[in-house]
């Protein structure tokens, strides 16, 4: 099946209060979107350990979404700011490792924004689909870093 068309798998780490509720709202509003996302719910994006993201890539995720409350709206006052700061540090690390940072998106989606959830999902799925499968990590495991595609050299991604 995967031969006919590449369908990426995306892991979404969502906060319980805003984005998870926003995704629920998309459901209640029967707004259709692409089925490539698997949600992992946490109380707050501030509680997301960067290792969770690494783990998801290691397991074979092609893309990751981290989404929480808008600035100022965090249920825990400032958790989303911490998440954003962590992301700012984490992003260059990803690039350094040769992982195309477009494979991870960070967004604010409130409990009222079912439509934005749908747009965000469709956009990340399309982006990651265009990037192709993320195979860097597997190659790293099996063959070694020298020959691995994306992990060794990000620019080769297009091929």
């Amino acid at each position, binding site marked *: 099946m*995967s031969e006919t068309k*590449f*369908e990426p*798998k995306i*892991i979404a780490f969502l906060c319980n*209060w*805003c984005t*998870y*509720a926003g*995704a*629920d709202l*998309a*459901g*209640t509003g*029967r*707004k*259709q*979107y692409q*089925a490539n996302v*698997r*949600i*992992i*719910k*946490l*109380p*707050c994006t*501030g*509680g*997301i*350990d960067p290792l*969770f993201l690494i*783990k*998801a890539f290691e*397991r*074979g*995720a*092609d893309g990751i979404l981290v989404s929480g409350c808008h600035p*100022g*709206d*965090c*249920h*825990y*006052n*400032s*958790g989303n700011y*911490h998440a954003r700061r*962590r992301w700012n540090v984490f992003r260059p690390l990803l690039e350094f490792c040769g992982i195309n940072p477009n494979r991870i998106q960070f967004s604010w989606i*409130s*409990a*009222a*924004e079912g439509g934005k959830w749908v747009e965000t999902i469709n956009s990340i799925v399309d982006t990651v689909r265009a990037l192709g*499968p993320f195979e860097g990590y597997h190659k790293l495991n099996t063959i070694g870093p020298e020959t691995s595609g994306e992990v060794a050299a990000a620019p080769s991604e297009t091929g």
Partner: protein
Amino acid sequence: MSKKIGVFVCHCGTNISATVDVEKVAEEAKKNNPGVSYTTTYKYMCSDPGQKLLRDKIKEEGLDGVVVAACSPKMHEHTFRNAAKKAGMNPYHVEISNLREQCSWVHPDKPTGTEKSIDLVRMMTEKTRKDKSLNPIKVPVTKRALVIGGGIAGIQAALDIADAGHEVIMVEREASIGGHMAQLSETFPTLDCSQCIMTPKMVELAQNENIKLYTWSEIESVDGYLGNFDVKIRKKARSVDLDLCTGCSSCWQVCPSKKIKSEFDMKLGNRTAIYIPFPQAIPSKPVIDREHCLLFKDARKKNIPPNDSKVCRKCLDVCPIAPVKAIDYSQEDEFITEKIGAIIVATGFKELDDTSMYGEYGGGKYQDVITGLQFERLASASGPTEGEIQRPSDGKLPEIIVFIQCVGSRDPAKGCSYCSKTCCMYTAKHTMLYKHKVHDGHAYVFYIDIRCAGKDYEEFWLRAVEEEGATYLRGRVSRIYKKGDKLVVLGADTLTGSVVEIEADMVVLASAMKAQDDAEKFAQKLSIQYNKDKFFSEIHPKLKPVESSSAGIFLAGTCQGPKDIPETVAQAGAAASKVLALLSADELEREPVVAKVDRLPAPIFSTCIGCFYCKRVCPYGAIAEEDIKARDGSVIKTVARVNEGLCQGCGLCAATCRSKSVELAGFNDEQVYAEINSVEFN
């Protein structure tokens, strides 16, 4: 020992089963998964027999883990955990797979939805495998409620709680309680005078010994949690000592600044700089409007303390209170902190009074195009015209009056898509009030739809048409322009397919109910959610209509969305009863989703290295430093400890901890990794 897990897949009628092959989901849950010992599907898992099925199977099959694949956990996680608890299982071994909101409702293709559902169930099964037993945390309850906002919603809620014997703190930011209802002339559908039913309630509130009233005050901050909030209140400088002042009225009678537009009269009347908003104000004690007061203006200009200004001290001079005067120019904002168990938010709405967005209706430049609340003030016996319908420009009685419904409502192009719900009724009322006062006048109403779905409401608007002779025209007005002293209204009547042109003397816009200007900021202060129009969100639109997203904070009245008085009062009563239920217990149980720092046997004690990054990031100050001491009392190491009472379970500390010594119960690393690992990747 591996857990015995049961998977229960719900059809949700056909909500799930129409686009997800539930049988296959159940089957796949078992396949290659030795831990899953029982699977089934059921039409309505949340129904009574569904819950019984869950309980029975836990007992019969000896399950020690349950996955319910159904709707969002926000709907029924609590239901199923409770059911499991009744069957003797620790409820925190129950997890919910969200098949309805995340699959069946959003992915119409059955194979796709089924495949994703299988994935989602597997994720939760693996998480359940790692679930630990948790016990609810008990917290004491402060038996005192806070009501924010002193309109009809707040007053009703405060009285209900106080009458049940609990203390209530009411905070109102204006100088008097009463809110918008105090401004109304008559109320639909009975046409009884608003003030006649409102003022007794205001007096009742003021005299209730269980209620402490802070007017001219605002909420500065809210800390703490359900049962134990710490609320900081800013008492704005009133420049009048409420304890000393008797409300004798001498001061506002001598105030020389008499031409300040009265907010209460929607700028159709004037007030003084030291003033009470309206004659029946509670408290009936004035406030100095420092922006307009001559003395404060002078002090600002000269940059001197107000007390040093000698420009005008008429109010102070005339104040009969001795030996210390009740007027104090040097008063400053004061802060008070109150311990609170539960909060009711009743902050109300704001009428769309800035019509500048309606350029086609003159954008606010025509004096005789007024808003609904302005009409209320004109029609009110206590209003600037003592109830006579005079048009603002020249005081003339309007012989032809046009009402335009849906101004700022149902108008997405102007950024306001919702229906304000009350305007159909209040416009019908306005036509009647007008006809009662201007007998040979003509009232025309432009409407799109008539929405009068309340008890006796339909009859009420028909009375406006059939008995009072108001002419209803179905169409929205496109333009108003001035021609001489008339206003030409260009409308349509779509029922005849015509353009309508009316030369009117006055136009009343049925302006929308909008969220307060600072609603967003206020919601952030309280950590409650709001919708795109900045009205505060209830947790569940049907089943939890008065609960905000923060435990212990409830919503009443129009801050949650447009509604009329009966509905507001009903909702206020509902919120009050929720608060009473909370305050009736001495202790509350809280979800045990809290962080914990590990403790290990000597000689390690804890893997915590004492860096206290967790302490720095914790938004609640829930992390303390704890000395681990040797028998001789010497400190071996200092480690972090979580105060369960303060922890709200965000998990920031766990994600920040460098030595992985903190875990968040219910969402620990093992559980999250189990979820990630269980996803079927390509």
